[in-house]
């Protein structure tokens, strides 16, 4: 069947059986490989995307149920070269290591903070319990998200409109995956 949906703000039309996993459509048809597969059964959260703002495991979403919906993936959290305050905090605080769970955490935390901007650390742990990470022990992930909670609260108290000025993504001269091509060092 042909299915029309909106992915990261752009209308897309994709083809496939109704039970085809949204995860596969994103990765294979739309080349949005930022969404990862860790378990294929809704346990690890690496494939988390937002559908109409709600975090879901895209490995469990049949394509037909994405019809007419707005899907947002990790590629569209930041606009252009800018990172969101949450992404920036995850990098700076050490909340990403191997990075395979990071897209899911960034997406889920984005939704969780929108819903519960005042969540404390324990609640943040509960909100992120659907995103398994094997590298960090979660400590620096929670540090990063809790820092965003605090900074946004400060910004709100101060009456400022955007919580944190998004900063330019640091260029990474280090290893880039094959296919990305290695990026030259900044001058």
């Amino acid at each position, binding site marked *: *069947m042909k299915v029309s949906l909106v992915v990261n703000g752009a209308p897309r039309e994709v083809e*496939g*059986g*109704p*039970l085809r*996993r949204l995860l596969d459509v994103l990765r294979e048809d739309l080349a949005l490989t930022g969404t990862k597969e860790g378990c*294929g*059964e*809704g*346990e690890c*959260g690496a494939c*988390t995307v937002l559908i109409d703002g*709600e*975090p*879901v*495991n895209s*490995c*469990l*979403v*049949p394509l*037909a*149920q994405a019809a007419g919906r707005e899907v947002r993936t990790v590629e569209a959290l930041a606009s252009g070269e800018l990172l969101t305050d949450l992404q920036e905090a995850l990098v700076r605080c050490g909340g990403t290591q191997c990075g395979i769970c990071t897209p899911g955490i960034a997406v*889920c935390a984005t*939704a*969780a903070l929108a819903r519960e901007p005042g969540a404390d650390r*324990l*609640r943040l*742990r*509960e*909100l*992120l*319990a*659907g*995103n398994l990470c094997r590298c960090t022990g979660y400590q620096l992930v929670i540090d990063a998200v809790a820092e965003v909670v605090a900074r946004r609260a400060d910004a709100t108290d101060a009456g400022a409109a955007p919580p944190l000025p998004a900063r330019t993504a640091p260029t990474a001269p280090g290893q880039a995956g094959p296919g990305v091509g290695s990026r030259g060092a900044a001058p």
Partner: protein
Amino acid sequence: MSGATPTRTPAPAWLRPATLADALAARAAHPDWLVVAGGTDVMVGSTRRPEPPGVLDLFGLAELSAITEGPDGLCVGAGATYAALLRHPTVRDRFPCLHEAAREVGALQIQARGTLGGNVQTSSPVGDTLPPLLALDAEVEVASAARGPRRVPYAAWITSYRKTALATDELLVAVHLPWPAPGTRQRWRKVGTRKAQAISKVMLAATARLEGDGPGRPGTIAHARVALGAVADRPVRLPTVEALLVGASPDPALAERVREAVRAAITPITDVRSTADYRREVAANLVARFVLDLAAPALPGADPGAGGAP
């Protein structure tokens, strides 16, 4: 090596009815189609199973998603998600054991998609919301195009392991929860392989109402329901334990008698998640703890006991 395209079976048909009537008609016409709601169960391992001839998609169908209050109780549409249950203040205030079960069933991602109806339909022995339905005297409403709606007490819903009273032309429509009498205490306790996002080893849902209680006086138990999950081929109520409770005063002696009665009432199994021994002892301890806590002043909400939700 040829580059021929692989042989593919034709994609299954897909139907997303706009009304319950349309859904029932489709169900009658295609009893062999897969019924899908949030997909958190049926999509697991979907790539390795043969595809069904067709799919009946009920997710988001308005008539199935509502949570409505009536004079006799609360009607939860089969398509209501755990997230919807969690957001509903009446569920939180009047049915805290169901609220807590919905909270612990899985993380945000599962809460957003999983439905109460899905849990009821799958009827797994480890379905988290099922013991609360027993403890709350829930009724299941099903309907067919030919015969219209009918209600089944939840206690009679499961007929054998993962099998239910649903006919092949019927759909699950709603779960009805009668209003608990004022003062009814509720308990939800899930013991899983870990605290969060875990399949259960033992679950307890229990309700009790005391009469004649007051400061320094526990009173006697006027009404009790004790339901366990993951200790049998389906969630079970323990009538022998309930009989012990009603008319008795919650004290340590009663708790000990109850502990013995629970041990005698269940024959759990050993599987990949736990052992028969452990399940029996822990089930007995959880019920005994519930009885002991009844002697203490009532707390608001479903006091989850030690080790409850964080």
